[in-house]
């Protein structure tokens, strides 16, 4: 600690802090432009110059470290004159076109001139003009170079935080301009973080352009619905219409950043494929009716189903309150534990318990405080972009060693200390091998196994480096992509993970773990008990104490028999044993990795109820369709991957006949002559806080702007010890895996016009070796064929891809990717050939536009 004096206030700050930080801690404001909290100082704008006793020149507060005994002044006449002079110079060439500038009213330059600027300027020469027209750098980013003040925040954001390195600075001196390669950002991430950090109206959002003045906007703080990172965002709407999204520097795991989905992908709220009114199937087609009629119809159909088994599927994108209430509805009104929340994989519940011990419900920043971070599976760059920004930051600025074990390459590989590239499906074996290596190495003298520095490491090498790095580290954090759950081997994989965590524990590495969910409320959905084997709070349905307390609270009987997961529900349907299947906010026909099975199953249920905001493919098959509120139309909470519960807010009214999800549950309960108390989101939250251990004691009021953390649930430990992985044959042909792309993660993103504009058309990604072996040309159409079906899409050669790996993003509905898949077989063996050899088949299978039979 060092003692410094700032404007006569004495204080102690940590050595190495800057004057700016010290002043901020005293509440003394020092103006800045180029400074960005999350990056090292640039000190180029010279707004923050201050006086230091004993030094002739003014010094930049943003970049000057405090020294013991230093005396700083931040408000002398000289400083005021200097600030005013800097602003005067900036204004000399700045076009004063504030009335037509999107930034007018929330412009840092305007504010700064107001606070510190000159009241008149002697400048009378013509201003510099780069271009008379604004330049459309990409579908979503537009630039007015004349307004740029060269703070470089955008360029640094793009390179250092996002890692895209798409923006740059061309020319020099007065001609310096920010732009993309050859004046275009057509192939960047389109995250718009450059727009967010631009202090003036130089970089602007094209979709928001000329749409509103900031003071016209009603701003609502909420949480992004697109992935589990849980970024906070501020929605601006005008007269109830969605206008834009911004992020706030002060709040959330993301601070000022977002990814393209969060920043530009919220326009889905105005999507036109909303369900307008309740519908029932009449003569094979869906026909609109009133809520009353729907009630009468449903009451009859439900009584026909009687006590025959029921099942429910709820989307992990819905708020905790909705999910909680849905499982309660299924458990108490439908008397079944068959509730699930994933249409894409099976969560082996018996592994949930053991892993819960390690799940660290804490801020990502804190979890990233370990000196070793291992990411297992997935592609965090595309699935959880903002998490990836933080990972990159921890590597680059805090010297965390990043280790990656995955089948899919990602941009983050470049920052990793060791990358163990595995064949899809071989994650289990690879984890077992790392475990073995670590066990062996731990037996040796520590420090004996330093990395050998090789670059193009073989798998063996990667495994050794990875194990060595873990062993050398003090603390280890493991991030697990939910990709691993897609595999039929997921149980074995999770067992290996558990063993690894236990070993790290035994080695004193204090392991921490978090899942990298790709759905906004996946952790919440598990917590809320949308699981066939578990009650809210990850408690086994066989746990009689838990059951008793729930029965008492719910004043209803609850079954102790484990329910069916969604796959098993489909089996029941096929066997003619499913009475009512109730699907809320989920589109399994498009997402379950066996389209044929879903089609048969949904058709065979006695009664299919679909409650959704959008007319999905699944809804089109329903007997009864109930229009529900969408995102932004009801309040509630999400639980992020970090275990942080955050409020989601309402910023628009449900359109047409849509009703809140909770209201609809009440409605359905009464149709079975039951009452489902309570029914407002706030009351449901209170009940969750009473009955779900990890949420105990939380109140909605206390979920401040940064949310609140749930507690790790106390769970019964499972039998430990490393289990050897089952022998498996992943073969050596081409295998198809799927997942999210940067611009799409399904359902919601598919309904965003902007995301559809920026997203590539559907593509098939594979290695250059495979492509050239098969004579396939980058960018040309290819046919991917499995035992089940085939599709046609554009080939994208990725030189980082390993041989054998084929990736097709799962979220292009028209592609019907899941038609290629068969349950229990993932990754999916495929063959690929140029499209021209089977044009007709391609037209039939892949590129046919979506048609609904209504």
């Amino acid at each position: 600690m060092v003692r410094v004096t700032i404007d006569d206030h004495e204080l102690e700050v940590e050595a190495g802090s800057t004057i700016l930080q010290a002043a901020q801690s005293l509440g003394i404001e020092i103006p800045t432009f180029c400074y960005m909290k999350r990056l090292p100082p640039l000190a180029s704008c010279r707004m923050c110059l201050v006086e230091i006793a004993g030094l002739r020149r003014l010094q930049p507060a943003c970049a000057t470290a405090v020294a013991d005994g230093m005396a700083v002044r931040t408000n002398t006449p000289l400083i005021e004159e200097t600030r005013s002079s800097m602003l005067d110079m900036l204004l000399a060439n700045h076009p004063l076109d504030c009335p037509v500038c999107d930034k007018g009213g929330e412009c840092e330059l305007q504010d700064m001139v107001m606070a510190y600027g000159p009241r008149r300027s002697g400048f009378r020469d013509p201003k510099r003009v780069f271009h008379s027209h604004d330049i459309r750098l990409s579908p979503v980013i537009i630039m007015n170079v004349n307004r740029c003040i060269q703070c470089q925040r955008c360029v640094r954001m793009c390179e250092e935080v996002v890692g895209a390195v798409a923006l740059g600075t061309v020319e020099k001196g007065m001609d310096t301009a920010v732009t993309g390669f050859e004046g275009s950002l057509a192939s960047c991430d389109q995250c718009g973080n450059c727009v967010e950090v631009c202090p003036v109206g130089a970089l602007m959002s094209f979709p928001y352009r000329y749409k509103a003045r900031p003071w016209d906007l009603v701003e609502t703080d909420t949480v992004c619905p697109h992935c589990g990172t849980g970024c906070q965002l501020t929605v601006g709407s005008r007269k109830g219409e969605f206008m834009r999204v911004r992020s706030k520097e002060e709040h959330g795991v993301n601070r000022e950043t977002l990814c393209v989905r969060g920043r530009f992908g919220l326009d889905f709220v105005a999507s036109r494929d909303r369900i307008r009114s309740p519908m029932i199937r009449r003569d094979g087609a869906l026909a609109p009716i009133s809520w009353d009629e729907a009630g009468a119809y449903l009451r009859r159909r439900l009584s026909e189903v009687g006590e025959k088994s029921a099942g429910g599927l709820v989307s992990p994108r819905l708020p905790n309150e909705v999910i909680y209430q849905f499982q309660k509805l299924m458990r108490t009104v439908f008397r079944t534990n068959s509730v699930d929340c994933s249409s894409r994989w099976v969560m082996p519940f018996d592994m949930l318990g053991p892993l819960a011990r390690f799940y660290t419900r804490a801020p990502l920043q804190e979890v990233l405080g370990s000196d070793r971070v291992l990411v297992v599976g997935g592609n965090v760059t595309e699935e959880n972009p903002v998490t990836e920004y933080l990972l990159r930051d921890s590597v680059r600025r805090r010297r965390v060693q990043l280790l990656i074990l995955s089948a899919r390459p990602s941009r983050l590989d470049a920052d990793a200390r060791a990358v163990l590239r595995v064949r899809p499906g071989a994650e289990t074996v690879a984890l077992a091998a790392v475990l073995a290596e670590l066990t062996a190495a731990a037996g040796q003298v520590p420090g004996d196994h330093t990395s050998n520095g090789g670059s193009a490491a073989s798998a063996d090498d990667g495994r050794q480096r990875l194990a060595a790095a873990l062993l050398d580290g003090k603390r280890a954090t493991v991030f697990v992509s939910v990709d691993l759950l897609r595999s039929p081997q997921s149980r074995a994989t999770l067992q290996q993970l558990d063993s690894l965590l236990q070993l790290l524990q035994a080695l004193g590495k204090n392991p921490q773990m978090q899942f990298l969910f790709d759905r906004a409320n996946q952790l919440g959905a598990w917590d809320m008990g949308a699981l066939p084997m578990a009650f809210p709070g990850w408690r086994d349905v066989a746990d009689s104490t838990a059951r008793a307390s729930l029965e008492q609270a719910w004043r209803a009987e609850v079954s102790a028999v484990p329910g069916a997961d969604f796959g098993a529900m489909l089996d029941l349907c096929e066997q003619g044993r499913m009475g009512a299947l109730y699907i809320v906010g989920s589109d399994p026909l498009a997402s379950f990795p066996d389209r044929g099975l879903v089609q048969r199953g949904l058709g065979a249920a006695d009664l299919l109820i679909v409650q959704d905001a959008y007319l999905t493919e699944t809804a089109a098959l329903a007997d009864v369709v109930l229009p529900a509120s969408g995102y932004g139309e009801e309040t509630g909470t999400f639980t992020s991957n970090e275990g942080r519960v955050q409020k989601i807010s309402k910023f628009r009214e449900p359109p047409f006949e849509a009703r809140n999800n909770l209201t609809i549950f009440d409605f359905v309960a009464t149709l079975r002559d039951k009452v489902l108390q309570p029914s407002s989101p706030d009351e449901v939250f209170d009940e969750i806080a009473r009955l779900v251990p990890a949420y105990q004691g939380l109140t909605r009021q206390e979920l401040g702007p940064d949310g609140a953390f749930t507690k790790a649930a106390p769970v019964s430990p499972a039998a430990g010890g490393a289990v050897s992985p089952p022998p498996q044959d992943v073969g050596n042909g081409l295998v198809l895996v799927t997942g999210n792309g940067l611009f799409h993660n399904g359902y919601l993103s598919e309904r965003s016009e902007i995301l559809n504009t920026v997203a590539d058309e559907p593509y098939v990604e594979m290695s250059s070796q495979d492509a050239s072996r098969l004579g396939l040309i980058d960018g040309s159409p290819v046919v991917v064929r499995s035992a089940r079906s085939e599709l046609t899409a554009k080939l994208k050669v990725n030189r980082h891809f390993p041989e054998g790996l084929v990736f097709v993003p799962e979220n292009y509905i028209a592609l019907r990717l899941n038609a290629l898949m068969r349950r229990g077989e993932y990754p999916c063996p495929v063959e690929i050939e140029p499209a021209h050899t089977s044009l007709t088949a391609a037209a039939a299978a892949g590129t046919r536009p979506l048609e609904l039979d209504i």
Partner: protein
Amino acid sequence: MGMREKIEAAAGRYPDRRSAIMPALLIAQKEHGHLPGPVLEEVADVLGVERIWVYELATFYTLFHTEPVGMFHLQLCDNVSCMLRGAEALLAHMEAVLGIGKGGTTSDGLFTLSTVECLGACEMAPVMQVGDDYHGDLDVARIDTLLDHLRRAGSGVPLAPRAGA
């Protein structure tokens, strides 16, 4: 050696391939005369670096040209020492003789006329650089001789030995 090999050789001199962007651009410009987008992309690909980095450098440094220049680039220094020795009059003379303004290129593509900052040869001011060569102690007569010489060289007429080049 082809362009790729030359760039690889340059890259071998640095521990980081990004460092080789400047030498690579000089090599590429020698090869192509100037640096249009596809050439910048090729440089980025050969070095395996970000395209925008290549673009940044190609525009930051004055010796790189993203637009075509004439066969002979007449770069007259008009910084202080040369200015004091009459560079302005020489510029006016060349503009008149060539019929182009500063920054222009003659219609036959032979000459581009520019003024440049100090060439570091003030002892022989006024100075002009053409291609790799410096021409110093210039006056109108010498300029005329030089232009004449270049014109013939450019149109394929065999060169007479040059004095003072």
